[in-house]
Structures are given as structure tokens and as C-alpha cells.
């Protein structure tokens, strides 16, 4: 099978033709996709912040940001600049080291997880064997940062917020991992590329969302809880805890928390799109269409077209999910902490276990449809 556009191969080959050694060419290539991904993630956050402000304004029949740029698109940039120039206050009785380390520990794992997000056959930073598992394990580091921030602030609201964040994150990690495991079982691989490949071929009908109707709901609830989005934003519940673990933070450290939470939201939406909505696949199977109208798979313009369509499709799916998350934020009330833990441990955990068992049984009985 043709592997499509291989940017890395052609880049390294070009540098080699200029007379550089293979190792040096590789070393020049390596930082490029990482930088691109970090910049892309940050810009994605700006878009989400703008969307959040506009959609929440529409939900409440307001206008929202309007003066900074056309339709207020520059408002998130203005927010960011304001936060950068704000004074960075460390409370007098806080633990300065932990206070500084907390936000860093929250942000870094989220950005690292972008390592495994594919936008096309070869448009991924690193296709590793453990793929999606890396995302789950990295997302489990964040509660340590939240606990650290909550403890170091020397404030009872912060400590409560940090403890809530950690409890919530631990409880919802298990249903999240179990619903991912059901997908992994069907695709016979943890690699995100393989998971998307397994959904390819039948267009929208082949996507995992039809094969995992329970799994995707569990995944979405658990992902919202992991991102601390509104039905589950107890760690920072304004009415109860001021701002939870962020209470004492200001300036760039607060901006890191803010950035981290939105990057995490976009990341969860991207992972949802990869796991359940066929990743970069179009609604109709493009390769069959090309076959049908008689264009060879190796035609350059077709490859460029499918690659760019793949990137667009991944982003469209992810931003559709972000839109749903924002709408949910402004329509659903917040749950109480005991309701949250009850939902996680007493409902989602058994249901996701049952889902896993049923998936295994279906896989054994219908190996054709459920990935034998």
C-alpha cells in the first residue's frame, strides 16, 4: 500500500543532497514538527477561547467580545498579553518552589500528549507502539501538579480544590481507560495510526461510534471530567471554592493553568475524533471514489488533496466536539462532589466493564465487524 506523503523522508533526503550527514539532517528535522505542534496547539487554544466567549454570549443572548479585531477574534490574544504583563504574585506564606512547579507540571504532560495525535498517515510526530496508552498515562500526572498547586498556595480553598481535582481525575481515569481499551481490543493495536486505519474503508459507516455506542458516551463523560469542564468543574467551582486551586495564582502562572485546561480540552476532542470518529477519514471513502473515477492512488495532486482534507477533517471533528462541550457548559448545571464520585464509581465503572466484556464477546462471535 502506498504510504502517502512522507515529509520527513523528503526533508531528510533534501538535506542529504546538500551534503549534510544523515544524523545531522535528522537532528535538523526533529524539532520542526514538535515546534509546529506546540504552536498549533496554542493557536487552537486561542480559537477555543474565542469560541467559548462567543458561544456563551450567544447562549445568554449577549454579544460577547466585539471590539478587538473583527468579531472580537483578537480578544484571546489581548487576554494572553494582559496575563503575560501582570505581576506574578507569590503569597507570603506559600511554598515558593511547589507554587511555581505546580502549573508547570499541569501543562507539560498535556503538551507532551500531542506526540500521538495523527493528522494523516504520516502527519504524526511519533507513531509509537503504545500510542494511546501514553496519553492515558501522561494525563495521570496532572493531578500531582494540581495537588501541588493546591497545597503550596497555603489557602483552604486551594487545598480543597486540589484534593477535589485529584479525586475526580483518579475516579474518571478508570472508565476512560476501560472505554479506550474496548477500542484497542477492536483495533488490535494501541497505535493511533492503526486505530484510524481500522475505521477506514467504509466512510462514515466504518467509524467506531457505531460499534461502541456505549463506549463513546462513557469516554465523553470521562473526558469532560478529566478536563474539568462544567458539569464536572468542581475543583474550581466559583460559588463554593472561589477558584479552587487557582485562587492564589496570577499572571503567567495562572495563564499556564488556563492554557493547560483549554489545551487539554482540544486534546480530548482530538482523541475522541481519532478513537470514535475515524480521525482524518472523510465521510465517504476517498480512495474508493478515486478508484471509481479512475485516478491512480499515487497521483501527486490527489495525495496533496487527501492529506489536506485529512487535516481539515480532524480539526472539523475536534472543533465540533469542542462546540458540544461549550454548549454543555452553558446548559448543564454543576453536579455535587458526592454525585460526581457516585456517577464515576457506581455507574460509569460497572457500565464500562460490561461494555468491555460485550465488546470482547462480539469480537469473538463477529470477527469480521469487530476486528478479529
Amino acid at each position, binding site marked *: 500500500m502506498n504510504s502517502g506523503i512522507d515529509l520527513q523522508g523528503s526533508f531528510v533526503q533534501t538535506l542529504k543532497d546538500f551534503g549534510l550527514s544523515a*544524523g*545531522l539532517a*535528522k*537532528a535538523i528535522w526533529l524539532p520542526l514538527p514538535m515546534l509546529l505542534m506546540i504552536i498549533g496547539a496554542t493557536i487552537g487554544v486561542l480559537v477555543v477561547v474565542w469560541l467559548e466567549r462567543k458561544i456563551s454570549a450567544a447562549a445568554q443572548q449577549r454579544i460577547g467580545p466585539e471590539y478587538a479585531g473583527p468579531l472580537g477574534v483578537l480578544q484571546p490574544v489581548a487576554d494572553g498579553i494582559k496575563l503575560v504583563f501582570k505581576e506574578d504574585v507569590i503569597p507570603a506564606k506559600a511554598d515558593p518552589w*511547589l507554587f511555581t*512547579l505546580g502549573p508547570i507540571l499541569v501543562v507539560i504532560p498535556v503538551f507532551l500528549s500531542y506526540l500521538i495525535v495523527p493528522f494523516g498517515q504520516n502527519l504524526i510526530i511519533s507513531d*509509537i*507502539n*503504545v500510542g494511546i*496508552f*501514553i496519553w*492515558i*498515562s*501522561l494525563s*495521570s*500526572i496532572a*493531578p*500531582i501538579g494540581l*495537588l*501541588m498547586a493546591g*497545597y503550596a498556595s497555603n489557602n483552604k480553598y486551594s*487545598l480543597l480544590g*486540589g*484534593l477535589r481535582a*485529584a*479525586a475526580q*481525575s*483518579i475516579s474518571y*481515569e478508570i472508565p476512560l481507560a476501560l472505554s479506550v481499551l474496548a477500542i484497542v481490543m477492536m483495533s488490535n493495536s*494501541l497505535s493511533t495510526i492503526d486505530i484510524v486505519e481500522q475505521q477506514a474503508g467504509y466512510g462514515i459507516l466504518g467509524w467506531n461510534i457505531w460499534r461502541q455506542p456505549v463506549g463513546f458516551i462513557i469516554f465523553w463523560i470521562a473526558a469532560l471530567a478529566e478536563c474539568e469542564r462544567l458539569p464536572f468543574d468542581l475543583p474550581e467551582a466559583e460559588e463554593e471554592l472561589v477558584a479552587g486551586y487557582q485562587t492564589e495564582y496570577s499572571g503567567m502562572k495562572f495563564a499556564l493553568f488556563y492554557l493547560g485546561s483549554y489545551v487539554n480540552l482540544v486534546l480530548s476532542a482530538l482523541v475522541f475524533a481519532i478513537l470514535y470518529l475515524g480521525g482524518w477519514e472523510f465521510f465517504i471513502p476517498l480512495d474508493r471514489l478515486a478508484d471509481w473515477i479512475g485516478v491512480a492512488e499515487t497521483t501527486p495532486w490527489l495525495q496533496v488533496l487527501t492529506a489536506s482534507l485529512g487535516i481539515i477533517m480532524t480539526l472539523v471533528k475536534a472543533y465540533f466536539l469542542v462546540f458540544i462541550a461549550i454548549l454543555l457548559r452553558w446548559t448543564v448545571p454543576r453536579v455535587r462532589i458526592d454525585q460526581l464520585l457516585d456517577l464515576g464509581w457506581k455507574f460509569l465503572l460497572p457500565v464500562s466493564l460490561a461494555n468491555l466484556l460485550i465488546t470482547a464477546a462480539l469480537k469473538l462471535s463477529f470477527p469480521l465487524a469487530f476486528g478479529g
Partner: protein
Amino acid sequence: MNLAEGVQIVSFGILGVMMIVTALGVVLLPKIVHSAFLLAGVFISISGLYILLNADFVAAAQILVYVGAVNVLILFAIMLVNKQEDYSELPGRRLRQVSTAVVCFGLFALLGTMVLATPWSLNTTSPAVIDNTIVALGEHFFSDYLLPFELASVLLLMAMVGSIILARRDLIPESSSTPGTVTTKLTLPERPRELASLSGDSDRQ
């Protein structure tokens, strides 16, 4: 020396130094919270060493289990316990210290012998170098390591059932029996008010 080897040596050095420094911090720092946070550093450096050994799945599992679960639970325990106690000399302190030293030295000697006795060198063409670690792990689990694997899973299942029973017992708010009348061996000493026994509850439900 090519790029990959250089990166490996440099990251091994960084990880080794990080592991030793954080481990010393865990033992030596006066505040227990700092020790607990540094413990996460130790676990992360160990996972980095696993990555250097091409054990990618084990590295990710190390982070998930030890950093994400064990360490967070340790932190929880530290932050929820609010016990103020003055330092007092325990009886037989000297004896305790000596026995601790003996046990630690024994463990160290055991590990040292293991390190010295194991043939470590593998050449890159040997069948021990594997691509897909997950498949290899699975095959080992269900063939030559079947018994330890099953035993560990039964143990974990027992722990889970036990914790569910303990959790359910606390969640039954008001039992019809008057407090203090029903006393079983499952009573938690810290909570004398909730003395509902398991058999009594299942009868009532």
C-alpha cells in the same frame, strides 16, 4: 558515535542523576509533603530508564500506576491526615535502628548479588531484542509467567472486593438497629457510631 547513541548516553546521565538526587531528597527532606512529591520524580526517572531499555509499555504503565495512582494516593493520605503529635522517644530505639540497618543491608546485598550474577550484555541481533513489546509481554504472561500473573490478578480482585465492601458499609447512613448494639470484627475503631454489620444490612435490603 551517532546521534541516537549520544542522546542515549546523555539522557542516561541526566536520568541517573535525577533519580539519585530525588531519591536522596525523599529520604532526607524534613517535610513529608516534599518527600512525597520527590517520590514522583523518582518514579518518572525510573520510567525514563525503562524507555532507554526499549520497554515502552512498562514505562507508560510505570507512570500510570506509580505516579498517577500510588503517588497521588500517598499525597491524599498526607493531606487528609491532620495529626499533631509531639516527638517522643520510642522504647528500644537503638534495637529498631540496628534491625532496620540489617534489613536494608540485606536487601542491598541481595540486589547487588543479583546485579553481579545476571549476564546483562545482549547483542543487537539476539532474539531478545523485540519490536512489539506489548505482544511479547502478553505471550510471557500467558505462558511461562501464568501463575504469578493469575495470582496477582486474584489478589487485586480480592483487594477490590474488600474495598467495595468497606465503602458500601460506610454508605448505609442510618441502620435501624441502635448504635452500639451490633458489634462485629469488621468494626472500624475510628468510627464507633456506624457499627452496622454486613449480614444485618444484607438482611434488611
